[in-house]
């Protein structure tokens, strides 16, 4: 397939006016077929970027659900700062922009025939496939923690498995003076700061509605993302309410008994909860594992330049399902994996060299009213590894490094910017603006 000058000119002008320009009919036969599985942070961002940047590529998005509820801001639902409707989106915006949205479940991939088999519809052929299926939970990794147990002890960690409202209802029904217990997994897992934002948002709710309630966090790790910032803020905003226990302090939960509402730790402590939020260990979404894209860790190794699978050619795995440390498993960074994977997939299909990647993450956490903190990271490919750019990124400044006024301003601005972050990212990925 050769690019004529007029076509390149078209590409150039299309880039300047991405929405309105469609590729002319004459190109239709030769159009590259880009298929994306999963319409979450990675997949929806990939569809949007592909549609804006490559008008002559046919873009199909396969997503089993008609709506998408974000994990980001789910903790604010627990905190009473958002409603579930505020964080739920449809795919109409992407469809309006010319993405072919197929609401069906991908059940198998034939990498040699280059087709995706669907639960209900006819198979979809691809030239290149991008997968962003998110995570599955490892049922049974914590003894007794089954799908049934999750009704009594919700995880609230994957909205397509269980809506956050299950946990929300339990928290609302909890008596004042009750104990909210969280079990937090070891790395790697979805959203490293997420459990600690959740502690903060639940504390925010308790402070107003159940001031005698306590929070006990049992953690399988000895440290966590933005730890000093969270802990300083907890002391400041919720003194005496939160106890965090790390792994070496017997924080690792190994077994749960949902009928008795108890959790057992590694060294034999038994903890009784009024409400228990168990976040179990995780792995790549099933379709990625079934397609042979995951290794023994349950996650998918990829080439750092392109996010093409290290195991199966022609398929790019992005977002939480991929092995991309030191990048965190975050929605924002998944959206930058997505753009690079699309550009690389198109380049490789056309026999061109993929562009050099820059991956970028910004994650805000809400800790209280007008109190936000963040972590930033810029990452690049180096050989067969991802690296974080030295001396860049990092967390918001600690309290002690700022005057009182500046500190208040910094925290207030970051909470405000977090709302802007959420709005900009979701509007972009769902094609709303």
């Amino acid at each position, binding site marked *: 397939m050769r690019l004529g000058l007029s076509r390149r000119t078209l590409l150039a002008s299309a880039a300047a006016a991405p929405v309105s320009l469609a590729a002319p009919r004459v190109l239709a036969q030769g159009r590259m077929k880009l298929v994306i599985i999963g319409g979450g942070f990675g997949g929806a961002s990939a569809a949007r970027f592909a549609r804006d940047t490559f008008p002559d590529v046919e873009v199909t998005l396969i997503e089993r659900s008609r709506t998408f509820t974000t994990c980001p801001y789910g903790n604010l639902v627990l905190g009473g700062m958002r409603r579930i409707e505020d964080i739920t989106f449809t795919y109409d915006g992407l469809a309006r922009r010319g993405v072919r949205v197929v609401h069906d479940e991908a059940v198998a991939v034939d990498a040699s025939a280059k087709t995706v088999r669907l639960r209900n519809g006819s198979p979809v052929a691809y030239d290149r496939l991008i997968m962003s299926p998110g995570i599955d939970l490892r049922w049974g990794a914590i003894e007794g923690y089954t799908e049934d147990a999750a009704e009594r002890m919700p995880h609230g960690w994957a909205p397509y498995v269980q809506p956050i409202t299950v946990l929300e209802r339990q928290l609302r029904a909890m008596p004042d003076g009750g104990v909210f217990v969280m079990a937090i997994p070891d790395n790697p897992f979805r959203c490293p700061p997420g459990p600690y934002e959740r502690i903060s948002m639940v504390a925010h709710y308790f402070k107003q509605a159940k001031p005698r309630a306590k929070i006990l966090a049992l953690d399988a790790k000895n440290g966590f993302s933005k730890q000093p910032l969270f802990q300083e803020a907890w002391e400041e905003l919720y003194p005496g309410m939160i106890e965090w226990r790390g792994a070496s302090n017997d924080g690792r939960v190994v077994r749960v008994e949902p009928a008795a509402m108890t959790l057992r730790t590694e060294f034999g402590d038994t903890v009784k909860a009024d409400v228990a939020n168990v976040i179990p260990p995780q792995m790549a979404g099933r379709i990625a594992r079934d397609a042979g894209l995951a290794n023994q860790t349950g996650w998918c190794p990829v080439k750092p330049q392109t996010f093409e699978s290290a195991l199966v050619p022609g398929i790019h795995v992005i977002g939480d399902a991929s092995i991309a440390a030191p990048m965190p498993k975050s929605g924002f960074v998944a959206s930058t994996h997505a753009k690079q994977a699309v550009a690389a997939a198109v380049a490789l299909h056309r026999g061109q060299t993929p*562009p050099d990647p820059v991956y*970028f993450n910004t994650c805000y956490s809400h800790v209280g009213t007008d109190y936000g903190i963040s972590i*930033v990271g810029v990452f690049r490919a180096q050989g067969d590894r991802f690296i974080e750019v030295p001396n860049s990124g990092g967390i918001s400044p600690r309290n002690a490094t700022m005057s009182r006024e500046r500190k208040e301003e910094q925290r207030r601005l970051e909470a405000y910017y977090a709302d802007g972050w959420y709005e900009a990212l979701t509007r972009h990925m769902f094609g709303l603006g």
Partner: protein
Amino acid sequence: MPSTLLRGGRKAAVTAVAGLMLAAAPAHAADEIRVGLISGGCVGCHGSEGGGGHGIPNIARTMTRAEFVATMKAFRENKNNPTVMNRIARGYTDEEFALMAIRWAKPE
């Protein structure tokens, strides 16, 4: 793909980048995709069209290219009371600032 942009320092880079924008010439298609990729990070907070909101500044055509690049460099040095932009700017190269400027600065 190593770009030829910005080899000769910022001034030359900005000029080269300015040339890139005018041209729909074949050799530049790959660079245009890079503009989309690099500025794709900005979109996550500043929005698809760079308009900002919730206190996040509008970056769409509010600066000349030179001003845009100078602003990003100042953030690197913690200037202008930054909250997150200092941490972000330290991760990018001068050439990448120039690519962002193509997307966001006033057309030249």
